[in-house]
């Protein structure tokens, strides 16, 4: 069974088609870089995969289930444009909240583990509003990985991260992929994405311009992909 199946997917915002007949699959345990220029439809596609938006036409399944299915949602970890943590709560309270929402067996142990792993254990009980930007980003990463998701949906995850958070995220993504998790990430940072990716999906004005394995040519020349497929319509 495919980890992600996108079938004849259309998404309209009013009359504007943000996604046009997008159709592809993602194998379990793979890392797919979802690429495209601004406005290509990457975020729209990721939001539909995460169950945050519904398709206008077509079908999406995650491990054979619709994205709004409770079991499917339990398997998803997301990092979006916002860090999705509460400024008025402490780091521990933030992670405890999500641990309880994901019905983890031992929320406190999970929170403690991820605070240690992200180097935030020394500020576990401090309010997030007192955190530096880098610390907030690391807490957001801890929140996304807290429930050991098997499908990670990351929308421009490296954008505005500091060096430490980038290293941490790369390490966690490598660990997740090694353990068989599936990663789908949209990004403009081609170098970082293509080093991690096993597959590539290129969107161009809402249409899928290319989907396939990441090839050595793409890694050697990051402009190769856009040059070869970018103007397809």
């Amino acid at each position, binding site marked *: 069974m495919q980890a992600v199946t996108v079938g004849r997917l259309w998404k309209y915002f009013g009359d504007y088609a943000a996604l046009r007949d997008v159709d592809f699959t993602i194998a379990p345990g793979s890392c797919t870089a979802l690429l495209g220029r601004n406005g290509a439809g990457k975020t729209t596609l990721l939001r539909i995969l995460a169950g945050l938006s519904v398709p206008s036409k077509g079908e999406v399944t995650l491990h054979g289930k619709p994205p709004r299915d409770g079991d499917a949602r339990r398997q998803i970890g997301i990092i979006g444009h916002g860090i999705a943590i509460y400024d008025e709560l402490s780091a521990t309270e933030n992670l405890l*909240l999500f641990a309880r929402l994901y019905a983890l067996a031992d929320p406190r142990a999970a929170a403690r583990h991820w605070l240690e792993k992200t180097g935030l254990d020394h500020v576990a009980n401090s309010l997030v509003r007192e955190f530096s930007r880098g610390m907030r980003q690391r807490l957001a990463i801890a929140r996304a990985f807290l429930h050991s998701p098997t499908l990670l949906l990351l929308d421009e995850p490296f954008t505005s991260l500091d060096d430490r958070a980038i290293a941490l995220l790369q390490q966690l993504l490598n660990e997740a992929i090694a353990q068989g998790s599936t990663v789908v990430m949209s990004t403009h940072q081609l170098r970082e994405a293509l080093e991690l990716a096993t597959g590539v999906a290129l969107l161009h004005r809402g249409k899928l311009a290319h989907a396939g394995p990441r090839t050595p040519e793409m890694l050697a020349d990051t402009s190769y992909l856009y040059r070869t497929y970018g103007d397809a319509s």
Partner: protein
Amino acid sequence: MNFLTQTLSVAAKDLRSEFRTKESFNAAASFAIVILLLFSFAVDPTSDQIREMSGGLLWIVYSFSAALILNRSFARELPNDCLDALIASPVSGAALFLGKALASFVLILLIEALCLPVFGIFYDLNWATQPAWLALVVLLATWGMTVIGTMFSALTVNLRLREIMLPMLVYPMLIPTLMAAMQLTTLLIAGQAIAGDDFVWLRLLIGVDIIFTALAVALIEVVLVG
């Protein structure tokens, strides 16, 4: 069990956030007290007229200040895109809605409890002659206001003019609840127990609570995701 844990986790999170920032509680409490104070200048506190309109006055104040609390219910999730993380999590729409409604219910009840003695002092009224009935009416009417307001808070969360849109949408829907609450509260403050035909108003409050809670729980997923 999981549903209850998720509901209480969302409610506890909202209450903890609110008690730390006090952004809507302080605004709602001071707004309610200022309105009570200003109305006390407009009418003679010793007149019979004030006894006849006491329930109406009290529930106007309650509903205005409740709008300030309810406006923040889902808007609280907008900074850092927290609503996306909640919707993407396995928490059911119903648990998310009830958790948020529960937190707003507690906050509105606190405002109401704070206002009652102030109301009694400013208008020279003994509001505690039928405490059990009054508590029942306040609980039922407040839940009705909360459940309708929380639903519309979810509906308007992404609107730029949500602070204006929420009251415009909510108050017409609150008419049955407010009418019943005003009638019964006036009666109870006058020292009379609820009896005979007055039970119609109590049944109306219960009916509105059940219908709107069921509707909100059934529709919240569509409201949040589309």
